């Protein structure tokens, strides 16, 4: 284990790549590694990039990497694409736009598939961020799957959340209002080489200014920035806005530590407990055959699902082994 920690913290690419695979594949051994690595985390600045399919997230991430490298920062990228619900397979194509950084040893790029997880990220993303953080990457960019309106888990993992829209989304901007608007720290209008940019800008501005009272009290007011990712236009302005948001976090929320505010840690723990309990209980019930027996009984009509659930969960909880 000491060896592994040494390899990860010294930036060994194969070890890191393997460890992320183990997390992704849910190998139980990986928990020990994550515990050991945790003390080495908390030093990276995490930026989440989210927005509808095809708005240019990957193109933008590629440009961000280029700009951050020029500033001497090392960068980790996690790019999430959807798993096909039919086959369980996935085409992970975000990397196509970023391949020019493949040979740069200051950049580590990893594609991840959602594997049925909702929220725009994968079950493994949180831990993958920790691993890249422990690896010593200065900035970690997380590209979500092309999301709808309430799939914004990335907010919980990022210091700065960036929402990317494109001109002419029309009604979609209205739809964004509900979920995404509140969580965006920076709004980008990408593809602003296209018609309708100013209209979209105005719509967004109106929507954001509905919260003007909050901003008057000194809360962060999300800037709206026009970019053309594919032509590398506006990316400097955008990164300047990220810097400004980082300064805001520094002054108001403990900077890098803002990812570990009581509120966020609480949320994170709820998620973790949920996942762990589910796994332990279901593993046990599957192993003993109790789960299948209950399903049979419900199908036959000799048991109702509510009683079945109670009859399974409570004994299973009582009988969970101490791990030591």
């Amino acid at each position: 284990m000491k060896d592994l920690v040494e390899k990860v913290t010294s930036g060994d690419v194969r070890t890191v790549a393997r460890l992320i695979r183990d997390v992704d594949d849910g190998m139980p051994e990986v928990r020990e590694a994550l515990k050991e690595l945790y003390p080495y985390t908390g030093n990276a600045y995490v930026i989440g990039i989210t927005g509808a399919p095809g708005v240019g997230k990957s193109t933008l991430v590629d440009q961000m990497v280029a700009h951050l490298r020029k500033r001497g920062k090392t960068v980790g990228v996690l790019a999430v694409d959807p798993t096909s619900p039919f086959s369980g397979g996935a085409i992970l194509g975000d990397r196509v736009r970023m391949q020019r950084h493949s040979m740069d040893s200051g950049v580590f790029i990893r594609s991840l598939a959602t594997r049925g997880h909702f929220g725009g990220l994968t079950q493994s993303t949180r831990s993958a961020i920790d691993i890249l953080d422990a690896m010593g990457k200065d900035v970690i960019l997380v590209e979500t799957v092309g999301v709808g309106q309430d799939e914004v888990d990335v907010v919980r993992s990022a210091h700065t959340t960036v929402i990317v829209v494109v001109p002419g989304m029309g009604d979609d901007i209205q739809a964004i209002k509900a979920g995404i608007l509140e969580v965006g720290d920076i709004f980008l209008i990408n593809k602003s080489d296209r018609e309708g940019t100013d209209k979209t800008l105005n719509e967004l501005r109106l929507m954001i200014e509905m919260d003007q009272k909050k901003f008057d009290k000194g809360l962060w007011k999300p800037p709206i920035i026009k970019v053309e990712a594919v032509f590398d236009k506006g990316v400097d302005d955008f990164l300047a806005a990220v810097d400004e948001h980082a300064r805001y976090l520094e002054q108001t929320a403990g900077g890098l530590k803002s990812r570990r505010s009581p509120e966020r840690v609480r949320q994170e723990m709820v998620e973790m407990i949920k996942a762990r309990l589910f796994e332990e209980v279901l593993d046990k019930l599957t192993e003993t055959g109790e789960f299948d027996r209950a399903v049979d009984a419900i199908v036959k009509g000799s048991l109702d699902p509510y009683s079945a659930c109670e009859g399974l969960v409570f004994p299973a909880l009582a009988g969970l082994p101490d791990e030591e």
Partner: protein
Amino acid sequence: MKHERRVRVMVAKPGLDGHDRGARIIARAYRDAGFEVVYTGLHQTPEEIVEAAIQEDVDMVGLSSLAGAHKYLFQTVVELLRERGAEDIVVCGGGIIPDEDIKKLKSAGVREIFTPGATLDEIVKWVKENVKPR
């Protein structure tokens, strides 16, 4: 945690060859077979392909070439993987590749080559039989 290894593969287009129809079709067939497929896009050097394969921790790299430079490109990928201690990543390929080259490539360590006419069923079946998650 569901402790189950998924097969992860990469489909890459080495060299200057711009024929990507085959590569895309193969990538889709792999996805439909339940694999996670990292696609690198066109115009990759062997070095870029190998580095990406390592960062992505794939079990197999599938190379596609229709422009004639396959001998150098495929062989270099195999060699570079070996140099990086990653010879456990299986290499296969396809495209317009003459029979005599197929022999040479196989003895150089490319495990299988598929030429035009190979069915997607065959191609997928081969992965299922020859590539195990590492």
